[in-house]
């Protein structure tokens, strides 16, 4: 009589989840944890195989994986350095579904505002000119430093900040700076549902966890189609709590921004800054904002229009605060886009 050996059954493998941060502030990571106790549901449904901010797996662990072994990768942060690019390519290979998570990965966000200046100016400010810098020898980071212990390496710092989909193929987008917790949970819940119940995936390129209207649609304030005679900055007035901020002359990006946040900022009296990216069916947030603002200016006289427009301190930085890397007109060229173009300072009309 033989005793049959019990077959060795591997524990059922769970789908694998990776989260990574490239050029980002870490806010997206916090936002994932903002789903609170539901993070336990995420842990129950997924095997977290890579998440530098929370778990101790190394890049070499990812490199050792098979291609396509990771089921889902939420990639936040823009692509600013050679290391960011390397990780974007690595995770694209290893993950079956790659999601551009948060505004930096989708549109460039705050890091991409340095596309309005040059690499040199950014480094000068960071290592020499900013008041808090104490660097009398003007020491700059080098990609290679030879020490007695060997050669140390730093990634290369690029001239232009790029979005994830400007570097690798991206399957889905979750906008927001950061994406709101209820939206993150809605996305993860959908993914779990798809994995466990075999539901079909949404079409490639879909924007998940956001609305399909503009921020104005969610805004509780009353819009009266008023015309304004001047722009004010938020600290200059105490805004009326119930009427449209744009009607009150405050530059609010609501008309050119995708809905999905629940109108968080405008509800508490702060103008929309545009973090959910361009509105549906538009690719360029800035030019849409030009169209929207031109409708509220109350003048037909060129001189008066100019005077009113002087109230907009920095059109490029304001209209493209979150989408500079995706601007149709490209990065800002301080030398002028051709030999004949004027310097940026000499704005003449």
């Amino acid at each position, binding site marked *: 009589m033989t005793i049959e050996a019990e077959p060795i059954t591997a524990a059922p493998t769970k789908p694998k989840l990776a989260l990574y941060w490239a050029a980002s502030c870490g806010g997206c990571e916090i936002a994932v944890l903002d789903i609170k106790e539901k993070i336990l549901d995420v842990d129950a449904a997924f095997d977290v195989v890579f998440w530098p901010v929370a778990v101790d797996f190394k890049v070499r662990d990812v490199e050792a994986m098979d291609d396509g072994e990771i089921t889902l990768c939420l990639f936040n942060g823009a692509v600013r350095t050679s290391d960011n690019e390397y990780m974007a390519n690595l995770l694209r290979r290893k993950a079956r579904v790659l999601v551009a998570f948060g505004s930096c990965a989708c549109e460039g966000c705050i890091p991409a505002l340095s596309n309005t200046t040059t690499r040199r100016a950014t480094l000068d400010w960071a290592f020499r000119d900013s008041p808090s810098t104490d660097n009398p020898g003007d020491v700059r980071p080098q990609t290679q430093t030879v020490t007695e212990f060997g050669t140390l390496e730093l990634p290369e710092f690029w001239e232009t900040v790029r979005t994830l989909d400007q570097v690798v193929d991206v399957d889905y987008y979750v906008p927001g700076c950061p994406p709101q917790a209820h939206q993150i949970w809605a996305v993860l819940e959908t993914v779990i549902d798809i994995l466990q119940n075999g539901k079909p995936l949404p079409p490639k390129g879909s924007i998940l966890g956001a609305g399909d209207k503009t921020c104005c649609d969610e805004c509780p304030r009353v819009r009266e189609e008023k015309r304004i005679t001047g722009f004010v900055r938020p600290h200059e007035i105490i805004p009326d709590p119930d009427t449209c901020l744009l009607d009150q002359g405050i530059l609010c990006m609501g008309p050119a921004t995708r809905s999905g946040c629940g109108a968080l900022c405008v509800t508490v009296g702060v103008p929309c800054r545009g973090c959910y990216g361009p509105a549906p069916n538009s690719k360029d947030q800035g*030019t849409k904002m030009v169209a929207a603002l031109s*409708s509220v200016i109350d003048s037909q006289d060129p001189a008066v229009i100019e005077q009113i427009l002087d109230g*907009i301190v920095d059109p490029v930085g304001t209209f493209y605060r979150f989408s500079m890397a995706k601007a149709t007109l490209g990065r800002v060229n301080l030398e002028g*886009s051709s030999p004949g173009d004027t310097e940026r300072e000499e*704005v003449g009309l």
Partner: protein
Amino acid sequence: MAVAFEQEVSVEQPQLGEWQPRIVAFLCNWCSYTGADLAGISRMQWDPSVSIVRVMCSGRMDPTFVAKAFELGADGVIISGCHPGDCHYQEGNYKTLRRVHLLKRLVAGFGISPDRVRLVWVSASEGDQWASTANDMAREIRTLGPLRLQT
């Protein structure tokens, strides 16, 4: 061969092999397009580097169109509508006026000369006005040179 109109503004004869600008013109259906049509019927010559896109009103001209034109290789953009007060839709051209003023500031912020965007008013009877606008813009863009967007 076309006979030059007597009030004809001279069309610059570009040298063979010389760089030619590409200029996109958004003309409103009611005044400016008809004006350009009149220029053609009257056999006025205007610079061949200007390509016309007809829109129903200059107010239809979304600033996104201008950015897209530059992205696709235009070196200059002309926007032309009815004279102030004459808009077929009452005030579409006033909207355009405000848009272009703000758009020029935006374009300048990107390091692109605001002279590459030009707003003009051309009525249906101003064929000569259209021809001189097109020629003038082409001359200006030839001076500025090709637009190279940085990516």
